[in-house]
């Protein structure tokens, strides 16, 4: 199943330190030879300041060789740099951690800077020292410390590039320390920061230089997508949030353009969040599967794996047998995946639900044995499963099991017409309101908009 492993595709979009858990996972699963993974881990650690870890990895891979001497040098250097940077940063930290100062700090960053300079003689360089120290700490694996420093830095700094960079750093720290709530917050603020740096829209007539910010934005979004996988698949609310984020048009475009393999996670998240779908959720999540199937279909030429194929067979081709086959393949893929591994049982459960739901909607009379087979269950288990299904889902009233003939009979009365009309017109008022709001937000003179209106009506 190694051909479906995405680790290799994902790694280029992750920070060096974020790759460690990925590789550790690979070492546990036996998709690749252990030696290869170990070598990779060593290569990875060599370039960081985590000297001890690198040395231990070296000893693991080369049991009968001596540790190269440069590690000792590096270690010394790292320690000395650490001390130096710490001294620089400590000065600022002392000031900031002073409760008086903390109270007098305001929203306005410039004002804060002025205040600090006037009263405590803290300049921009000092603040940058915070950043440097935080970064260095991160590089030798002290993530929580780094997170602290970067947080403080961000509060004070005005440099936009460094601020973004510290955002990334903080996010990585939070991910690596496993503080998912904090990480989620961080993720959202970073996302806002990226989105708000709206590049000028590359126009056909515009000179080439303006194309670059758009490209940079695309890059950061791609990175964000990958990093957010860590958060979304560990946070309890993660899957629905993932759907919300990834299905927003900008990120959907990013997925389609630069990283179609994310579709696997999107598809899995959609399957996983099926159960909660009955709750009150945004329409985007409720219709997520339909949306995703469309995207999968569109991007099929670029990317496909058992998970996406499963959805495609089920909802595009309605080929239940093929879907069943893909599902059994997908099970292996999911269990081997770093992010999805924990959700295997959930995934299988939900996928079965999806199959049977689709099956029941299309059929009027179903042989229980056949359905059990479709679900990869034994006959008795299948029956139990089906009963549960009928009880849990909305079709409870329509479906009856006829044990004598061993079939399920489903009588679904056609949807009353008034209901479909209500369904169709639902939300129109809201949408119109949103339109109005959007219109008033633009600073165009009202006359222009009025002129646009009749033209639209005409178009009807």
């Amino acid at each position, binding site marked *: 199943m190694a051909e479906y492993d995405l680790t290799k595709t994902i790694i280029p979009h992750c920070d060096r330190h974020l790759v460690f858990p990925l590789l550790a996972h690979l070492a546990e699963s036996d998709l690749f030879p252990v030696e290869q993974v170990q070598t990779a881990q060593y290569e990875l650690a060599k370039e960081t300041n985590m000297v001890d870890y690198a040395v231990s990895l070296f000893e693991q891979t080369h049991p009968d060789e001596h540790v190269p001497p440069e590690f000792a040098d590096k270690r010394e250097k790292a320690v000395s740099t650490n001390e130096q940077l710490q001294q620089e940063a400590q000065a600022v930290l002392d000031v900031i951690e002073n409760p008086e100062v903390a109270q007098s700090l305001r929203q306005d960053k410039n004002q804060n800077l002025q205040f600090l300079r006037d009263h405590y003689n803290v300049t921009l360089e000092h603040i940058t020292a915070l950043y440097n120290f935080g970064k260095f700490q991160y590089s030798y694996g002290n993530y929580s410390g780094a997170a602290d420093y970067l947080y403080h830095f961000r509060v004070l700094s005005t440099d936009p590039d460094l601020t973004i960079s510290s955002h990334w750093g903080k996010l990585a720290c939070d991910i690596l320390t496993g503080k998912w709530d904090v990480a989620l917050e961080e993720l959202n603020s970073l996302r806002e920061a990226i989105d708000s740096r709206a590049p000028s829209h590359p126009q*056909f007539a515009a000179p080439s230089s303006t194309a670059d910010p758009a490209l940079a934005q695309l890059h950061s979004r791609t990175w964000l997508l990958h990093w957010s996988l860590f958060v979304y698949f560990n946070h309890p609310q993660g899957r629905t949030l993932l759907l919300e984020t990834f299905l927003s048009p900008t990120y959907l475009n990013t997925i389609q*353009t630069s990283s179609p393999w994310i579709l696997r996670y999107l598809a899995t998240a959609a399957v996983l969040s099926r159960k909660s779908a009955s709750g009150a959720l945004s329409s985007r999540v409720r219709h997520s599967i339909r949306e995703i199937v469309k995207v999968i279909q569109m991007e099929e030429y670029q990317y496909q794996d058992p998970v996406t194929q499963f959805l495609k067979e089920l909802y595009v*081709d309605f080929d239940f047998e093929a879907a069943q086959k893909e599902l059994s393949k997908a099970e292996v893929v999911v269990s081997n995946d770093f992010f999805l591994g924990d959700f295997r049982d959930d995934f299988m459960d939900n996928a079965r639900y999806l199959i049977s739901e689709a099956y029941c909607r299309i059929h009027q009379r179903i042989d229980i044995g056949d359905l059990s087979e479709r679900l990869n269950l034994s006959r008795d288990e299948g029956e139990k499963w089906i009963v549960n299904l009928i009880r849990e889902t909305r079709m409870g009233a329509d479906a009856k099991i006829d044990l004598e003939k061993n079939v399920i009979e489903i009588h679904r009365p*056609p949807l009353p017409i008034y209901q479909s009309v209500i369904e169709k017109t639902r939300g129109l008022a809201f949408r119109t309101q949103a339109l109005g709001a959007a219109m008033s937000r*633009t600073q165009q003179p009202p006359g222009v908009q009025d002129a646009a209106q009749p033209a639209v009506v005409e178009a009807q």
Partner: protein
Amino acid sequence: MSRFFRAAGDSDSDSSSSEEEELMSSDDEAPKQAAPAAKPAMSRFLKSAGDSDSDESSDEEESEMSSDEEEQPKPKPKLGRFVHGASSEDESDEDVKRVVKSARDKRLDEMEATGKSMDNALKINDWVAISTEFDKLARMVQRQQNVSEPVPPFYIRTLVNLENSLNVAVAKDKESKKKMNASNARALTAVKQKVKKLLKEFEKEVKRFQEDPEAFEREYQTTVQPEVAPAATKVKKAKKAEEDEDEDFMTVGKGGKAVHYTPESIFKHLQVVQEARGKKNTDRTEQIRILEKLLEVSVTSYQRIRVLLALIASRFDYNSSVATHMSAELWTSAQKEVDQLISIVATDSGYSIQEITEDYDDLAERAPATESDGVVRIRGSVISFVDRLDDEFTKSLQNIDPHGTEYVDRLKDEKELYSTICRAQALYEKTKQEDPLARVIMRRLEHIYSKPDPVVLALEATVATSDLKPSAILSADDKTSSLIHSLCVHLYKSGNSLLRTRAMLSHIYHFALHNDFHTARDMLLMSHLQDSIGNADVATQILYNRTVVQLGLSAFRCGLIKESQATLHEIFATQRVKELLAQGVHQQRYQVLSPEQEKVERQRQLPFHMHINTELLEAAFLVSTMLVEIPVLASIESEEQKRKAISKPFRRLLDFADRQVFTGPPESTRDHIMQASKALQDGEWEKCRDLIQSIKIWSLMPECAAVKEMLAKRIQEEGLRTYLFTYAPHYRTLSLTLLAKTFSLPLRAVTSLVSKMIWSEELQAALDQSAGVVVFNRVELTRTQQLAQTLADKVNALVEQNEKALDQKLGVSSGWGERADGGKGDKRGEQTQERSRRGDRSRGGARGGARGGRGARFAQGLGSQMAGNTQRNR
């Protein structure tokens, strides 16, 4: 020397070798110098006398007037001529006798040699050689006549002999037409005509010769002697005329002497030529000839570059404004000279040709050593020559009848042109001039983007053999797409947005041509070109239209019927396909184009070999529309809904076919498709398939067998869907196996199709697994219910429209004038309906929200710029 005689009458342009020979000979003989100065005048004289449309004299007068006024250039040459004329007079008086004699003997010898080689060529039936030799001979004789010597009997004899052998050859040729190759045959006819003409000219002599060859020869011998004196007197007369000659002629006199002159005089001549350029009564042929001569005598690279620059320019000038395009010969020589120019500049880095240089003295010789930074900069522009060459090539293709052999012959020159372009690219790569480099790469790209692989390979093969190679060339085992890719990437990086756009479109076109529909589509959407194409120039809009159409065709070939229909729909809705693709001028019904408009339109037309076959296009469009539309037609019941047709043109055709009382066997492509549609409606998928597959035009599509197979499969599926839609009301249950048998589809496919229809609520039914049947549960709607539903739909559509209108207002803030119109276009885009959702408003990412609405602005592409009658057409 011989040049002047050619000016007097001869039209052909080759045989520079004989010229050279002549020059050599005149070098040898010092006394001969006497003649040249005088003779040109005479020849000129003779010509103007013989000319039937002689406005010459008046011209001369005019030019005299003007030359009097024009103080500056005149005095020097005039003086020179005067002095020269005087000396020549003296000389000719004294030496003329001896001179003429020896010269004549020499000429006679030469003639005999030529005659001999003609005889040799006759033996091996090589008419090309005969033709050139004969031309040479005719020229010599003409010269002979100009010095007022009688025509030598040898010539007459040759003429008569030649006529005889010609008759034999023609007769032989008739028997075995196949054997002779094309160029030989052409030469043969040329010789035949020439001989005929000459025979008429020398009718008298020939008759005399035929009566008594020996007497004729004797007569010649006697006449030769007394002729000498009159020749001398004529020289005198000619001198007088010379004084009255126009400026044009003066250059001739000097050019003739250019043989052994210092480089300085080359520049002087050049200057004179350049001054005469563009004047009304300048003889362009003459100028070209002078420049050719100058080129031969020029020694240094600098001189050659200067002369070449002037020569190429005057070749392009040669055409009068009346002619539609440059003649092929002229073009070929211009092309050769551009090649020459490029290789001079490319091999010698001490010279560079630039459009903007500091002022320098036109008359001084320059060399890298004397320049301050070691580089001689010369004013001129290679890129403009290349551009012009390419444009002239296109123009000639536009004007030649595409169904004749001439067109094919002309098309063969593309190879040469392509290699010239590549050489220019190599040059600019070497000199690192970004702007012209981008332009020349664009030219190159335009030659290959729309061509299939073998053609590109053939073009590239010539490049590989040339001495100057650009950075990107195609080796035999490479793929063309890699070449196109590297060219395009270079252009993407260039600063010129127009070139970027065009490169992008060409790239997309190339992908589409190679059936890489997805990549092509993604590129087109990512480029956001559909938003801004309305602001582009017409040529780019045409390219855009071509690209979109090719994209549609590629979708069709890939079996993506829906996509193909949506893409092609836009352009067919305008009903001006040919015009939009620049493949023909549209006949306007209500307005007449002014001649200027028509001319402009004609200039835009693509040469025939680049056309996309519109009939094939229409077939693809109609078939895909049929496959999309017929099931939809079957599924809707109320008249209300019926009005919302997906494709109006198709619906119109179908209605028309319905009204037909009697339908005969199908003839045109349209007939085929219409009858197939009706068969499909009736559920006779086999008939439909046969009809569609018997359309002849498919053979023009690459991989036509695969396409036909794909179509057959689609027809089965759509036939099943149509059948279900049409007959569902009449059944309670329907066995799946029966359906599978009727449409000869596997049971699994049928189940899947039916399931899909049930799932998407197109069909109100359910499957009964144990019995293997479809159970229909249909509900009849009351009128009120129907109306309520329609109303809900409409309100929905209204809100969607409003959102879209707002989208466009907020989304793109460019100067796109017809917002509301664009919305209208979008509405039809079927894809948009699928993916309209609100969020699309924020168009941030590279792909933007506009994944739907593909090609929605299509019709506006040309519509907004052309006559502006798009509105009416909608």
